[in-house]
């Protein structure tokens, strides 16, 4: 034997084990175990009593997570390591738990991948999920977790000093509007989304120091107008990828009508290379959208620019956001003459 029989096999094994590493993390988050550990409920016995779990199963799950490097274990007591304290404890400013809790729910959608491959779409789509009460708040906050930072970067890149009124279409948790308001002292931001979603955003933004500069507009952007010559800037962020091309073109046309002359439309989303095999995050996201929405996809910047030019926008260009992160995105900008 020239080389160990398991060398290439190991590479395969690593990928497969990806699910075994992911699931205990997601389950622990579901029960908020990291938050409880931070509060001193830090043994399998104490956690299982508090959360009504089986002690042995709890210990096995904690050991798995410790083996992945998120917990320290000493004499039967578990402590959050730095990464867990920063990212997985609920009152940390850098908490990404909502996003990961959403993944736990999405696991079931991914379970259906074989069916989606046969039929082309999932049995339940995103809108069905959003209608389930338990889903919306966590989903919206989940999207919020990962948008805080790109939102700030986008606000900086757009140069908002002279912008008076913005419209955030499909505003979700409202992080982009919040970043706009924080970047420009005279800016007023309107959030547009479904009623349940706006309720979540209102809750999150009610304690914002500039809460008075947010306006809320309940609408369904599929069927409602966005307005008539009212805004200096319209943002469509993290929306295009859950819709099909026809819907996106229509949204762009509606945005054109809703902008004042000289106003800008910004489509911000993940993009994919023309050959559609990278960046890796985008290619896998495309699959995720398939199992989860049935009709969304990750578009190329060329496609997006085409929508804008087709609707009459000029000076259409694009700028990369969060280039060094695991999930880089892109803002495609056009100006209404």
């Amino acid at each position, binding site marked *: 034997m020239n080389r*160990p029989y398991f060398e290439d096999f190991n590479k395969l094994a690593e990928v497969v084990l990806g699910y075994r590493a992911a699931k205990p993390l997601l389950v622990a988050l579901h029960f908020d175990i990291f938050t409880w550990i931070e509060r001193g409920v830090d043994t399998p016995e104490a956690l299982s009593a508090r959360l009504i779990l089986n002690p042995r199963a*709890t210990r096995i799950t904690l050991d798995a997570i410790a083996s992945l490097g998120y917990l320290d274990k000493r004499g039967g007591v578990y402590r959050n390591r730095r*990464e867990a304290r*920063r990212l997985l404890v609920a009152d940390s400013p850098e908490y990404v738990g909502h996003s990961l809790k959403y993944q736990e729910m999405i696991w079931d959608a991914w379970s259906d991948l074989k069916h989606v491959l046969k039929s082309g779409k999932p049995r339940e789509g995103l809108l069905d999920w959003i209608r389930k009460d338990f889903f919306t708040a966590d989903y919206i906050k989940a999207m919020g977790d990962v948008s805080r930072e790109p939102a700030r970067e986008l606000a900086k890149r757009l140069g908002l000093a002279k912008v008076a009124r913005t419209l955030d279409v499909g505003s979700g948790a409202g992080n982009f509007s919040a970043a706009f308001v924080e970047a420009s002292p005279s800016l007023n931001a309107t959030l547009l989304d479904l009623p349940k979603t706006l309720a979540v955003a209102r809750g999150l933004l009610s304690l914002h120091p500039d809460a008075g500069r947010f306006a809320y507009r309940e609408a369904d952007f599929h069927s409602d107008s966005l307005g008539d010559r009212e805004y200096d800037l319209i943002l469509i962020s993290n929306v295009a990828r859950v819709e099909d091309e026809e819907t996106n073109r229509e949204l762009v046309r509606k945005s054109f009508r809703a902008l004042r002359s000289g106003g800008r439309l910004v489509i911000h989303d993940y993009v994919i290379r023309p050959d559609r*095999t990278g960046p890796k995050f985008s290619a*896998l996201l495309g699959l995720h959208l398939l199992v989860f929405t049935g009709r969304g996809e990750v578009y190329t910047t060329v496609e997006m620019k085409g929508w804008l030019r087709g609707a009459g926008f000029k000076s259409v260009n694009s700028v990369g956001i969060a280039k060094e992160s695991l999930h880089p995105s892109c803002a495609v900008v056009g100006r209404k003459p």
Partner: protein
Amino acid sequence: MSVKTFPRSGDAERNALIDAALGYRKAKVLMTAAYLELFDHLEEPRPAAAVARRLSLDDRATEILLDALAATGFVRKRGRRYWNTPSSSRYLVRGGPQYLGNNLKFQEIIWDAWGELRHAVKRGGAVRPLDYWLLKHEGFTEEYIRGMNDIAKGPARELAAAIPLEGATRMLDVGAGPGTYSAAFLKRHPALEATLLDLPGTLETTSELLAREPDLGPRVRLLAGDYRRTSFGVAAYDLVLLSHVTHDEPPEVNRRLLRASRRALKAGGRVVIHDFVVDRSRLRPQFGALFAVHMLAYTGGGRTYTAAEYGGWLREAGFTGISRRAIGSGSRNATEAISGVK
């Protein structure tokens, strides 16, 4: 909401966490493709539509899946055609000597059990045991058994080479599965005969696999039963092998298995436990810690155990001369052979 400090985009810790939490997607893509035998159709460059047609799948969905496989390095793409990487050809195309697809198919089926992990953590064990999955997916038992065979060949050869068996004539393979381990021992020791104990359904597949090795046939006896209930016999064997059995069971059952093994051995005979072993902290190797969760997901009380636990059970059962030997060092799923003498 106060203005907060946000991490830089290049935040390595956060990226690592998100990467870990999303690891299931990459796994699911690979496992699904293997289940559908998609790689069989990529030995020459083909467009997505051609693959979809051959597998009766939706065109657009197939293209998205293939792009994801290309993005994760399992297929190559140029223009609109896809084809296997050398590694995928070697491991993921049916019929090859190093095919691992059966194991991946098994992982794909077990995905649903993992989906119920939240409930298993509450209950203390799988909501639905392995039997449920065996019945739910037609042909699953066979995939499961063949899957075990795929990954056992290397370790079996190494284990057979590591166990001294001079003058041995009879061995008992408890929970023999596809019989990979017995086959390796039989090949190494021409005078040896093997009794393979396992469930009737399993032994059907074992038969088929052993039929490919006609010279072994006469030296193999299949004993259909349940190792938790079937008698092992008395003073009949030189070797009793418990390979990848103890991780499926709770401590009480393992203790019983070792007592039964001792009764079944001739004086001077050897019992060999071959399995994953974790250190005293139970955290290393990482594979072992995660495998314990795997047991939680679809067994009633399985786990990975420490060398101290195994040694303790052997001593309690009356074995002496207890020794340990590493198998497959450096492999992702390295194991140990822990043995005792009667």
